[in-house]
């Protein structure tokens, strides 16, 4: 079902009525699960994910796939190591997308996303503070409408903040794309921010995750064919989008913090007296 992207040139509006640099609505909550160490719920447009963090805790029995091997970054280093192991588990609900697909445990795409998340968080969390332990992050995908990896990274960041695991800064992610496919070699192609499912199917795009306010890229995943000249524009728009996402997530965390202080769930820390609570 080809999507008629050509109308973009007429009105400069995308299929869902956004401009090129607009994010979809992001709604996020933290502390959604009372029993968990940390939890979050995140919606980016119609993509909805839940995240639960347990740990840092004593490592459980060794699982089949994780850890060992070699190659990759600082992800799964094993229970005996000096750093906490970040174990990520993603469950994609059968009802999450339009066509009901059963994905087994061994689905390579899911495994790759798990490994990406684990390596992304391991680089940001201060895992060296928790030797011989394990941080379990389980993510549930309730609804998919593009930018799945980005939503998962954002949800995991929120849940880790909620769990109180020390980390360098927020890791925020979003997607960026480019109008017109790789075959059309027009120079006037506009970059697009935050692709939905339809756009993701049709246009080249990438997912970028950055650290806090900086331009530092923690993860960059591009799975489509695209002219090398388009990369710069897409990356710039993506990094900028990550900063916008960071602001939104920061507000969510601060709002929750204020609420908890006002409710008396937590004590107002020393030095927080001058903080404005309205």
């Amino acid at each position, binding site marked *: 079902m080809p999507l008629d992207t050509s109308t973009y040139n007429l009105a400069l509006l995308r299929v869902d009525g956004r401009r090129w640099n607009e994010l979809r609505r992001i709604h996020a909550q933290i502390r959604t699960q009372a029993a968990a160490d940390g939890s979050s719920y995140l919606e980016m447009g119609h993509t909805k994910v839940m995240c639960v963090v347990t740990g840092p805790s004593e490592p459980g029995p060794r699982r089949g796939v994780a850890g060992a091997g070699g190659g990759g970054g600082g992800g799964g280093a094993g229970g005996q190591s000096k750093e906490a192991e970040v174990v990520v588990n993603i469950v994609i609900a059968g009802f999450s997308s339009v066509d009901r697909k059963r994905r087994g445990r061994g689905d390579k795409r899911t495994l790759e996303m798990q490994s990406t998340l684990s390596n992304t968080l391991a680089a940001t969390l201060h895992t060296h503070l928790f030797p011989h332990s394990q941080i379990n992050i389980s993510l549930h995908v309730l609804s998919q409408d593009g930018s799945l990896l980005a939503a998962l990274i954002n949800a995991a960041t929120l849940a880790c903040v909620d769990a109180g695991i020390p980390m360098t800064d927020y890791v925020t992610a979003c997607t960026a794309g480019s109008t017109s496919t790789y075959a059309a070699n027009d120079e006037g192609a506009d970059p697009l921010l935050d692709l939905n499912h339809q756009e993701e199917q049709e246009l080249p795009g990438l997912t970028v995750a950055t650290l806090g306010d900086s331009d530092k890229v*923690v993860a960059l*995943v591009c799975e489509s*064919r695209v002219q090398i000249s388009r990369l710069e524009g897409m990356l710039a728009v993506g990094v900028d989008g990550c900063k916008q996402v960071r602001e939104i997530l920061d507000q969510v965390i601060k709002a929750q913090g204020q609420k908890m202080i006002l409710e008396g769930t937590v004590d107002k820390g020393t030095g927080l007296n001058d903080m404005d609570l309205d």
Partner: protein
Amino acid sequence: MPREAEPSLNEKQFVLQALQDSVRLDGRELEQYRPLELTFGDQYGVADVTLGKTRVLAKASAELTVPYADRPLDGIFNIATELSPMTSPAFEVNRPTETEVLISRLLEKTVRRSGALDTESLCLVAGQKCWSIRVDVHVLSHDGNLIDAACFAVVAALRHFRKPDTSMEGGVLTVYTPAEREPVPLSWLHSPFCVTWSFFGEEGDIAVLDATWMEEQVRSGSCTVSLNQHGEICQIAKLGGVPVEAVSLLHCTNVALVKAKDMSSKLDRWLAEDAKRRDKGGLLAELSAENDRVPDM
């Protein structure tokens, strides 16, 4: 599960400190590849790639099957990656490690999803008969940078491969043996190559190409870029690891393009050399009754 022995603290520090001064253990420049060599087998579609001490063998094969029900007009194309215990004790049979999953995903994205092989041309009778092309990747020796070597081997094997010629006449499909008709090459659209960067240090400011196994064990992040010689990115994978400035990632992709073009021309040259070696004048030469002349006594 057996684990690879990690390098000692001394070794790690030595490698890292040397890299701070832009010196590598084997004396290469930071952006220099190890010597890349390719040997084709006697059969079509066998490519043996060595990159320093890393050695990867890829073998392409074809068989006739029934296409998938949801894609009646497409042939089947699979890449199977196997890391056997022969490579390293950390790899076990029938239990894919994370490395293996990531390599096969990367190869799949680079070669299959980028449309390097035209799968529609593999279909013979819609919904009934098609070619199933399979590439088996065997890692024979692991000294780092498996991805680049494996990708090069896969592309070389597929471009070298010849499948039996076929014809359709009056609804009858005939597959010819190599003796009846010269086998035909696959319909190949573009050649993507993987270039892997490794990042070192807390800040990730040292970027190195073609890391050895030692360097891979101490690196803090990596980024694999796949490109073809036309300057099209087929895939980028920086799956976590140390944060790197966006600008330096852009620089990395530009350097990667140069390397990919270099690999592309090397492969073209080796394929041409191999074709020349195999060309004995075709069927006509084979059918001639003339014997090789024996020098006069």
